[in-house]
């Protein structure tokens, strides 16, 4: 049994939160540069230029890329042969999250759903983190992290279709979601699509799909092809960067599919803004 110290997890979580807030990962930066090269609208091209300049300033001056430094979302896989010493894994992730947001001068964006009171005086700064935990073989802890902003989360949606809706129904649903959203979620976007499973499985899959590197291939050839079809459809919408009109509305479509009930076809669309702050570490 391999032992990993609680404090080591705290420190690593703190560090990836601070780093991610001001450094766009390479896949997202490359996708934005490609969008800049390909964009036909001069207005959207100008805004893309501003966003690339913003990424430069953020990284060189260690300023957050966006004032919405998100809620911290984690997908964690813990090996069956690892033991966390000195505390619980979940507590370590939460403690690292709080340290990252406080020490990195990031925004406290968590509040009570109705009173809208900011939680920092009661349960902590930007806590609790959103943690999805899985147990796997091995003696490592694998942590995928993303800072999820509110603007893109607000346009996300899920629905359980009857099986007859089929692939066409899925394509139309995603298209309707992105079309209705227009400029609001800060395009150019990454669109995560969860297909199948149960209602909640589809939603979690659509979230996890956003953690995949932009530009990477889907391992399932059928889904890889469907990603291409949906991407092409979405870029016909003409929304462009920040809704100014243009050819580059979506950087990538990522699908995660699961077997589902014979009566259902669950579909979830989770949207990520152009500032796709995500990272992956293994301890």
């Amino acid at each position, binding site marked *: 049994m391999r032992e990993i110290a609680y404090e080591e997890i705290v420190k690593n979580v703190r560090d990836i939160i601070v780093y991610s807030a001001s450094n766009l990962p390479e896949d997202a930066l490359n996708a934005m540069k490609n969008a800049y090269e390909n964009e036909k609208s001069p207005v959207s091209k100008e805004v893309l230029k501003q966003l690339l300049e*913003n990424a430069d*300033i953020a990284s060189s001056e260690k300023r957050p890329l966006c004032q919405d430094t998100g809620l911290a979302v984690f997908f964690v896989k813990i090996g069956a042969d690892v033991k966390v010493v000195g505390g619980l894994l979940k507590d370590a992730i939460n403690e690292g999250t709080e340290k990252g947001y406080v020490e990195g001068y990031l925004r406290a964006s968590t509040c009570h759903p109705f009173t809208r009171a*900011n939680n920092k005086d009661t349960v902590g700064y930007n806590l609790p983190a959103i943690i999805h935990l899985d147990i796997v073989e091995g003696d490592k802890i694998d942590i995928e992290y993303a800072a999820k902003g509110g603007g893109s989360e607000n346009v996300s949606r899920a629905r359980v279709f009857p099986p007859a809706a089929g692939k066409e129904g899925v394509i139309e649903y995603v298209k309707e979601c992105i079309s209705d959203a227009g400029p609001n979620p*800060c395009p150019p976007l990454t669109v995560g699509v969860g297909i199948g499973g149960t209602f909640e499985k589809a939603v979690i899959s659509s979230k996890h799909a956003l953690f995949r590197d932009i530009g990477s291939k889907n391992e399932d050839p059928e889904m890889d092809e469907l990603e291409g079809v949906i991407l092409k459809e979405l870029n016909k919408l003409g929304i462009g960067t920040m*809704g100014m009109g*243009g050819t580059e509305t979506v950087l990538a479509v990522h699908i995660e599919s699961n077997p589902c009930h014979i009566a259902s076809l669950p579909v979830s669309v989770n949207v990520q803004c152009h500032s796709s702050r995500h990272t992956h570490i293994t301890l």
Partner: protein
Amino acid sequence: MSTTYNLTTPLSDEDVNKLKSGDIVYLSGTIFTARDAAHKRLVDLLDAGKELPFDIKGAIIYFVGPTPPKPGDPIGSAGPTTSYRMDSYSPRLIAEGLKGMIGKGKRNKDVTDACQEHKAVYFGATGGAGALLGKQIVSAEVIAYEELGPEAVRKLEVVDFPVTVVNDTYGADLYKIGRAQYEVK
């Protein structure tokens, strides 16, 4: 054709009437911040017949909740938040003399109608460009509702703050115009 203007707050009817959707404006002077929670309180004050914490006549409200400043900086990153959440409050403030709003994303018909009727404009700033936009803010001071944290009302001094006119006083909408040019039916 898009025209570029440099404007200083407060704005007059003459200032806003010359602006057209798609024009680029560099704003300088004082602007005020407010998001959802602060808007609710401002409208509650008006309903109660009380005075607002700042002079709304000719003012610009920026929909932003900045990150905390690092030591020595006036403010952290400060890009726009999505504006539709303020749609139920903005018409009331426009009727009181608000001349400009800065945010990102679509506004509803009540807001664009109020912009036409009372002569006000909705500016878009680049969402997600918080580091760049924060640098155009030279001072920031919380003037109301400090307990709201990032949502408190702040008085900002800005220099050449870059925005684009989305909704003008004539009913035009840049998002609709831009999208129609590139949409493939």
